[in-house]
């Protein structure tokens, strides 16, 4: 007594074509080429677009892995939705704190950072303390304030 579940459409979405193994080798080669490119450009230490470029290449590689190694190209419907939503949430989750840090009152950002006018204080060079925290000074009145 099989339960004929209402998931026919999803089953259609799940249909997988069986491809030859050659396809995986092609993807692999593409991934290696992209790795080589990112290695070379990474060596150049481009100042502003270095990380951006590297991340674009990484996204391309990630898409290839997800689509063909993980068969997202074949798994449609809910599977794609799940993956897409998780990526969307990662992006949105990143944007909000960055927007906060970038627009905060500058005194509220970690001292010594790009968005703060306060000097980081060297809190000691020994192994137990680590270096360059924003250790607050014992008395506030001496720290420069950021307007």
């Amino acid at each position, binding site marked *: *007594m*099989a*339960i*004929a*579940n*209402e*998931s026919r459409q*999803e089953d259609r979405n799940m249909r997988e074509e069986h491809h030859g193994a050659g396809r995986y080798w092609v993807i692999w080669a593409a991934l290696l080429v992209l790795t080589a490119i990112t290695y070379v450009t990474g060596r150049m230490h481009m100042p502003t677009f270095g990380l951006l470029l590297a991340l674009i290449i990484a996204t391309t590689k990630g898409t290839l892995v997800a689509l063909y190694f993980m068969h997202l190209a074949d798994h449609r419907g*809910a599977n794609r939705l799940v993956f897409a*939503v*998780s990526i969307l*949430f990662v992006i*949105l*989750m990143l944007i*909000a*704190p960055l*927007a*906060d*840090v*970038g*627009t*905060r*009152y500058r005194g*509220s*950002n*970690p*001292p*010594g*950072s790009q968005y703060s006018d306060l000097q*980081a204080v060297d*809190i000691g060079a020994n192994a137990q303390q*680590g270096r*360059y*925290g*924003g*250790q*607050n000074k014992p008395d506030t009145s001496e720290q420069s304030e950021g307007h």
Partner: protein
Amino acid sequence: MTPSSSIAAPGATPAHEEHHDHHPSYLVDGTTIRSWLLTVDHKRIGLMFLFWVLLFFLVGGIFALLIRVELLTPGPTIMDAMTYNRTFTLHGLVMIFLFMIPAIPAVFGNFMLPLMLGAKDVAFPRLNLLSLYIYLFGAVLALWGMLNGGLDTGWTFYTPYSAHTTTTVAPVLFGAFIIGFSSIVTGINFIVTCHTMRAPGITWFKMPLFVWALYATSCIQVLATPVIGLLLVLVAVENISGIGMFDPARGGDPMLFQHLFWFYSHPAVYIMVLPAFGVMSEVVAAFSRKNIFGYRAVAYSSLGIAFVGFFAWGHHMFVSGQSTFAAGMFGALTMLVGVFTAIKVFNWVGTVYKGAVDFKTPFAYFCGFLFFTVFGGMTGIALGTVSLDVAWHDTYFVVAHFHFIMVGATIMAFLAALHYWFPKMFGRMYHEGWGLVSAALIILGFNATFIPQFLLGNNGMPRRYYEYPERFQALNVASTAGASLLAFGFIIIAMYLTYALVYGRAAGKNPWRSKGYEWLTESPPPTHNFVGPQPTYPEEPHFYVDPKKAEVPDAV
């Protein structure tokens, strides 16, 4: 959506009386301890969850009473400051992680979801059992930590305090981390069940609204819980070894901790309250014998709350040093969550319109719930109004607001569900009179407990205060008095329900004459839910129209 009323056959009648003897109910199908502890039956797992969840509710409730007694006088009353700080932390932790989050999904969700979808079980029954044991393991670890030194950070674990406190942070955090897995597993299970296990006839927009609510809840559980898991591990490691991820002395940002914390913990509020909304959609439809007014609007608003609720977290941080711009962004998104909740409220009231109301215990809880949700929700909007929150943040106004939502909405729904589905789960009826009396006591006691706390917050009393200036005393005494009334109500419930469990009269298959899908099988259901052929579901749930004059307009 047009219900296919042309099919004259009633929904489904799979169970025949003559089969009944061969298919014992799930309660008696196997009576050994082993048959309970190693069961993969969603109903038995739901019942075991019910047991543990109620136990932890009792523990959390005792902590709550201790807090209220301590606050009777401005100075020390029954405990010292450290004990008090641990007590409110444990109250928060037990209530949130051990009671509130699993309460409705893991108990009633587990029990009802397959029944409502016409399925024999959830998609992954063994994972379902695993989630129970993960939950218990995490609970044991957390409670062990609580007993061995306790934790005094408040349930929010804000750094840098949690990184430096000498109380046992790490075991409790790891315990909460493990409980998170249980929540994730339940979420995955429910989502997959909704996608793959629906019986013929149950299309997406014929799923009962409780299922929709659970679906939205599960989405939140799956997407948000991993983040708090990571964060708890980070804080635990920081507390143990000082790696300095959020240590302001090394450039770390405590506000980043708050961002990540509330990325989970704000949606967690919807993990707690969305199932409550779902339960109430069922209860109001069943007891006013009406289809839900604006079914699609309610279903979509569940998803809307789940999605928008994710991006409103910054309203917990308006005065934390967050930027004004971010505060504006989060403030505006908070308002949207309010709109989605308003849609639900209006549609519930609309459901009663032209209905046939039977004022039974679950419905009494619905009345309380409606008031608490509106008042709690609107005060939530008030708190989300950026400038007002500057004064209210971290005062008793906040405490009162979230208790209105968590106790007012969720526990009312939990009790309504317990009463509504009691005959479904156990096949017995409780005493209706006592039910109404205790419902009245609880609703009154609840108001008496928390309305003074709103006023306390207005007056400026901060939360987590062991001692307080004397001008706050009168309202605190009022609140404690209300809490004792509330406790009394719970004791009555415990007594008559326990009595009904043993001596209650047989309820019959469908004592409420409800047309929810879960009532189409026996009460209590047999082990695999249905006897005989696979039921089909031509009608939408809660379709109470007289078939003879079934002229139905198009729904929105």
